[in-house]
């Protein structure tokens, strides 16, 4: 028989806990300081320009938003697909989803030319804009996930949480479709303009979200000395392997589709062969370090059983994910617009040349601040509310599920 799971707040009295809070708080303060400086001076202090209009803040923001929807998957697998092994993880999964989304939105909003006009973004809607839809999707996701969490955590309301889980699952798929479509629906730029980006972003979210989830789970249980059994961890890492492979498949289809169309050969050549930093990031960081190495580590018969190795694989997936978004976002803008096919183009406005971009320290600090904000929310939440089961030992969770592994 299954033992009743006991959720409990973390103690949060150790020096380590306060150092963690202080460290994250410092990073957030630095991020806000960078924002103040950028907004006061204007964006001329950043590496962004009229050629590369979206920079490092957008890489971080999109990364966090994509990871947020993916982090909810663990809860969905428990609720929607009825896998008992995942049910004890549902609360943390919902919490991470909310925290990562808020972190991402913080970065996105603080990079606007006019963050002070947030109220306008909330009150003026152009419903043809996928960006406007995303504002509704983000807010809806937050509201739905909060309700889902409440129904999960409030014993009296527990019987209603399943429908909320279904709604949250469908909503998160729509949300990531929206995020991918921000780029997929841009007809002007050759690196974007592909409907495939929507499902590709969904599968990227599966991978990034699960990697973040596993790292947070392992850190939380390790630092609080709570037991975390192999059954659950191995199940999660095997799933991560499947997601990494799925992302690789989508990346391959994306590039093959572009390579088939002659008009896109030059942009593919740029990313895959002679794009300098973008080519290096693509092959070395995204493909080798961020995909192939973690795949081997995860499925290796002995390395795949080592916890430091699993944690390293998760971290590599996240680094690879940041590289993937950097190549797509910045590389896609660096490649010149092809307005005059068959002509060599020159102008005072950098037409026909590869645009350069080097991220400023301010942009990176803002992005890191967003990550810190998400992690701080999680740290505080698990301290004050019952998100984490006291034990995730193999015997504490569903024994049948554990046996099946």
């Amino acid at each position, binding site marked *: 028989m299954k033992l009743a799971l006991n959720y409990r707040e973390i103690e949060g009295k150790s020096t380590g806990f306060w150092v963690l809070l202080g460290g994250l708080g410092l990073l957030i303060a630095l991020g806000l300081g960078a924002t103040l400086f950028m907004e006061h001076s204007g964006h*001329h202090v950043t590496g962004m320009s009229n*050629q590369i209009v979206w920079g490092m803040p957008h890489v971080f923001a999109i990364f966090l938003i994509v990871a947020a929807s993916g982090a909810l998957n663990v809860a969905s697998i428990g609720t929607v697909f009825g896998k008992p092994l995942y049910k004890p993880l549902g609360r943390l999964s919902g919490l991470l989803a909310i925290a990562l989304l808020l972190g991402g939105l913080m970065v996105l909003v603080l990079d606007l030319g006019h963050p002070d006009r947030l109220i306008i973004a909330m009150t003026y809607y152009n419903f043809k804009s996928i960006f406007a839809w995303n504002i509704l999707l983000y807010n809806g996701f937050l509201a739905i996930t909060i309700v889902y969490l409440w129904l999960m955590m409030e014993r009296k309301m527990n019987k209603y949480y399943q429908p909320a889980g279904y709604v949250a699952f469908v909503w998160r798929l729509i949300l990531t479709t929206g995020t991918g479509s921000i780029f997929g629906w*841009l007809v002007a730029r050759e690196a974007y303009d592909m409907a495939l980006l929507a499902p590709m972003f969904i599968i990227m979210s599966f991978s990034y979200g699960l990697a973040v989830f596993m790292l947070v789970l392992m850190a939380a249980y390790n630092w609080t000395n709570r037991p975390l059994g192999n059954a659950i961890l191995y199940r999660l890492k095997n799933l991560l392997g499947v997601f990494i492979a799925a992302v690789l498949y989508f990346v391959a289809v994306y590039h093959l589709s572009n390579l088939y169309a002659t008009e896109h050969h030059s942009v593919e050549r740029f990313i895959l062969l002679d794009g300098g930093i973008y080519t290096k990031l693509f092959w070395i960081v995204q493909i080798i370090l961020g995909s192939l190495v973690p795949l081997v580590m995860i499925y290796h018969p002995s390395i795949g059983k080592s916890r430091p190795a699993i944690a390293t694989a998760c971290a590599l997936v996240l680094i690879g994910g940041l590289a993937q978004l950097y190549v797509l976002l910045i590389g896609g803008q660096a490649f010149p617009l092809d307005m005059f096919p068959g002509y060599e183009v020159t102008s005072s406005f950098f037409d026909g040349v590869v645009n350069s971009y080097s991220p400023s320290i301010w942009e990176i600090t803002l992005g890191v601040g967003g990550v810190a904000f998400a992690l701080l929310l999680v740290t505080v939440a698990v301290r004050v509310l019952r998100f984490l089961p006291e034990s995730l030992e193999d015997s504490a969770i569903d024994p049948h599920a554990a046996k099946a592994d």
Partner: protein
Amino acid sequence: MSDTNKQMNSARREFLSKAGATAGAAAIAPGVFLTTPAVAKPADEKVTSDKRWGLLIDTTKCADGCDACVTACQTENGWGGADNSEKHSNEEQKAQWIRKVQLKEKATGHVSTLPLMCQHCETPPCVDVCPTGASFKRADGIVLVDKHICIGCRYCMMACPYKARSFIHEDLKDQKPWAPRGKGTVESCTLCVHRVDEGGTPACVEACNAESHNAMFFGDLYDKDSEISQQLEQHGGKQIRADLGLNTGVRYRGI
């Protein structure tokens, strides 16, 4: 206004219009060509979709090395130039509403040059993607940015196939009253909407004519008798990135 005044006014209007028609008929009698000039819109009258303002650029007449259109736009709208108020921005960050682009055909080596600005699309991608509706198209086809509700997200710049828009990276001074600009917002060619609404032509067109290049024509694309429509009917005109089906208001000849 008294009734007598009204009668006098209407009598005067009738006289003037008849006299004008006679004079006009006399002028075109030699049969040179029939065109109607752009007419001013009274300030209290709504902009309608009866007109669609457009530009035709004859690249065969556009002189290499001449940037009179660019300079005129800078002076008119207060961007760029020698006294550019974007002191801190680097070259990649400074705004450019209109730029001269040089094209060299790879196959033949033929070199041509043309001014490139907002193409005032009929279905502008910048308007589609703008989350707040700050990027908008007037009924008469002019694409503008409402600086009051632009949040500076730059999605329009990502969406524009012509790189026609600029983001302002710092505080600005000494702006023209008819061309408000501001840090943290996006801007682009307004087709000199302030002149057009008063019956004038954009500064770039005026400057090109003043240089006697006459490479730019401005007018109502819906008016069959306008010079731009007649030129387009006789010689045709191409759209840049016509494959996108945006039906641009700016057309080019000779590319």
